[in-house]
């Protein structure tokens, strides 16, 4: 039986990617709790402003005739806790010790699992994160508070963002036991900013884009789970975003993959601490600041494009776009290689959909594909970023069977999904490309088990290649491409192979010795409690017995 989710008890950023609801700007605050009682008082005040997952009255046909919808806020607010934050709030030992190991350890101590070595090593992270892991513990990150703000047609952010920021700063001052932490980058601010690229439409207005700094459209495969959408919307939303059943149909994922206290895809309850009310309707979150080396990326792409053009006997522009698409699995505008495998196909696809890019049908067309017809990766390379992040049906061990009853769908993928909830950060000015400029992605992954979902994808699929038969090659985009510093001469640098259908008579193409395109600048693991749990924390009334 599927029961309606208690949306008023679930924090809003779990169910919604605010970026796709017009919230194009964000501020991420990190705080330190110096005193447990003051910390609980602080949580109690902030609690009243938290944006829940209740459906908004947007005026669209989707929500017609339902009076219960709340008004969409201009600025959202959500709150999450590190393990050390919960410790600082004096939670009972029995509750703390039963929390998951990876959450207790925190992101920096998991760096070898996550591939955060070399340039991504914690000792090279932003100041706030280096302070957080320093032995004195005086500036440990305990709390995360996010604010996502609406923009107007001209791209100006609502003034309420500044108002709410001032409110938070004042609250810290008057509270006395909670402190905002600085050290996010060169600007000395007490928050990390995030914001979408705003593209001028031509009439003085702008539209927020989903492009990141390498100029790829991003965020298509966000999973869909039961109860996230109303039935009518769900039917189409699950295509390319849900799980694939053995009969090859798409279904929403079990709630328990993303929200604690609900059955998950193993037909069990996700592991969580005691008491039940403390974890139910909450979840875990990985926050990562991922810096993008735009100059290295563009230079390398230019170099590969020339070689690719010569080997494949195509124009340099086509070669550049093709290599760029092969690295990710999608053309720069988001069209999947499995939908439009060649440059000519891509141009035809764009032409067919010109002027209709805002339709729901177009969105579905960008997601509606499987890998069963492309197991060799002639269309989308097996090592491409998108294929690694979401393997869809690719790992079905009986996928080549001619008997449909043998098929397993996405059985080996549906326990490894994460909700992506971040935004890019830094300026999108198209000036000189600079690796040292402050820009990248605030990567936020929400899932019921950081170990089973986020860390597995990161370790086994991004930083390793065995499941894709590419040995120890890492993800061509976000993977660690450097030699393992501990391996000495035995460390290898990562390559990327673009497979070629033998029928074309062209050889496969190797992109050798990938430079480091993305480096980690900091982050941690957080618990995103339910509204019930927030009030339990605030009241100090968590009873695990």
């Amino acid at each position, binding site marked *: 039986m599927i029961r309606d989710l208690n949306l008023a008890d679930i924090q809003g950023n779990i169910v919604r990617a605010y970026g796709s609801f017009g919230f194009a700007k964000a501020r991420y605050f990190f705080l330190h709790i110096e005193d447990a009682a003051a910390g609980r008082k602080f949580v109690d005040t902030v609690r009243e402003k938290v944006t829940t997952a209740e459906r908004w009255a947007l005026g669209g046909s989707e929500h017609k005739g339902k009076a219960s919808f709340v008004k969409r806020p201009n600025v959202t607010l959500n709150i999450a806790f590190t393990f050390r934050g919960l410790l600082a709030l004096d939670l009972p030992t029995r509750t703390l010790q039963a929390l998951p190991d990876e959450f207790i350890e925190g992101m920096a101590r998991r760096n070898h699992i996550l591939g955060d070595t070399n340039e991504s090593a914690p000792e090279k992270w932003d100041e706030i994160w280096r302070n957080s892991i320093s032995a004195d513990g005086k500036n440990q990150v305990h709390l995360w508070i996010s604010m996502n703000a609406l923009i107007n047609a001209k791209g100006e952010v609502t003034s309420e963002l500044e108002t709410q920021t001032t409110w938070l700063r004042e609250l810290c001052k008057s509270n006395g036991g909670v402190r905002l932490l600085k050290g996010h980058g060169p600007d000395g601010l007490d928050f990390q900013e995030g914001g979408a690229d705003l593209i001028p439409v031509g009439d003085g207005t702008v539209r927020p884009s989903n492009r990141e700094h390498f100029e790829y459209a991003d965020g298509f495969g966000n999973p869909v789970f039961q109860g996230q959408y109303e039935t009518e919307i769900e039917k189409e939303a699950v295509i390319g975003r849900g799980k694939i059943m053995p009969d090859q149909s798409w279904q929403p994922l079990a709630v328990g993959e993303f929200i604690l206290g609900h059955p998950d895809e193993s037909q069990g309850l996700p592991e969580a601490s005691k008491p039940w009310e403390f974890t139910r309707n909450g979840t875990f979150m990985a926050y990562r600041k991922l810096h993008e080396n735009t100059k290295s990326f563009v230079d390398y792409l230019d170099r590969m494009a020339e070689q690719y053009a010569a080997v494949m006997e195509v124009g340099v522009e086509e070669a550049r776009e093709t290599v760029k698409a092969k690295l990710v699995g999608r053309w720069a505008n988001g069209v999947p290689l499995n939908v439009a495998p060649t440059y000519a196909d891509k141009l035809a696809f764009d032409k067919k959909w010109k002027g209709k890019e805002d339709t729901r049908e177009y969105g579905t067309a960008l997601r509606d594909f499987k890998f069963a017809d492309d197991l060799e990766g002639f269309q989308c390379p097996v090592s491409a970023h998108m294929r690694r992040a979401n393997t869809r049906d690719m790992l079905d061990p009986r996928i080549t069977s001619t008997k449909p009853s043998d098929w397993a769908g996405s059985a080996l993928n549906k326990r490894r999904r994460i909700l992506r909830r971040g935004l890019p950060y830094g300026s999108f000015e198209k000036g000189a490309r600079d690796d040292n400029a402050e820009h990248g992605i605030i990567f936020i992954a929400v899932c019921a088990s950081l170990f089973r979902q986020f860390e597995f994808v990161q370790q086994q699929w991004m930083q390793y290649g065995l499941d894709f038969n590419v040995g120890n090659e890492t993800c061509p985009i976000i993977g660690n491409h450097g030699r393992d510093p501990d391996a*000495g001469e*035995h460390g290898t640098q990562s390559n990327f192979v673009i497979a070629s259908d033998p029928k074309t008579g062209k050889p496969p193409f*190797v992109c050798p010795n990938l430079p480091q395109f993305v480096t980690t600048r900091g982050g941690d693991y957080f618990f995103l409690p339910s509204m019930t749990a927030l009030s339990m924390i605030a009241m100090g009334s968590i009873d695990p017995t």
Partner: protein
Amino acid sequence: MPNFDGGHYFLTVLAPVRNDTVASDDGVPISCEQALRGELARLPTALQSRVSVTSGLNSPFARNKRTHFARFSVISDVIYNGRNPSDAIFNAVTGTNPIIPQPVDRLTSPFLLAAFDFDVPRSGDDERDGYLRELWGDMSEELKAVFQFCTGFERVTDGASFADYIAKCQVETTMPFNDYWITPPPLPEFNLTPWKLGIAITAAIFVISLLISLCGLFGGDVASWRISGMMPSWLSWWGLTLIGLVATVVVIWLLYRAVMAAGLKPFPTAPDSDLKSVLKAIFLQQRFVEFVVEHQGKDAAALYAGFGAFLEQYQPSNPDGPTQTPGVISTPRGEAK
């Protein structure tokens, strides 16, 4: 015999550890189990993990060119799983008193588990003994250092007596692990159809005769129901029921025997799955990636000349030619000879 499978011998050894004490390096009395654990901790592992890769001190097993995997472990005791579970009602009926403790299973001594997977051309104890004599030649000092804490090892003086000792401690490997087939191996089909037919016929005789016999119990004149020409007059329906039952059991038992016999046949040997060939393959993969990257986009003449030089330098079909040494994770280019 699953000890031999897929062209490899999977040797599992459980050697009892002495229950006495010895003097440690510091002169402190320690148990043989402690001394053995210390010895194993000092035994270098292969240079294949983050902590060992640059240590320069390779596993002694790397001196042997037939050993795929070798591992040691100390089993202190069996793990106690608690009382045998029982049903409260069953206990009440049988008068079992749950307050009285049940016996607890223990090992009489700790055991050293040794597991070696190695290449052999065929099944048989001679092949196992040949490998063990070879291993003694490669690393007798290390083997002595480890096995000296095991009961009865004092009698081992050379390769032959080491092989005898290991044979006495061998337990059957019931689940070997084959990972060298990259295509489905050519396995014989086991045709179940005649077996299913046999079971269906015998079971049908049993069920039908039983039903008829039961009719007789309730007053039916079953003695006069005969299958003309097929049932001799001395054979009753109850007799036929018994025959059907026995025949069904016999056919199922024969099927079980046939399945088990088929399961005991060794898995076929995968092509080029001996250690030398595997090392050569790993070596060639590394060199070939470099070759492809360096020759990408070159014209046919340069490619032809370059590949000729590659074949000459690395001799792909010669497993004894340039290759990777055992016990390392990779062969950096500078070390490739």
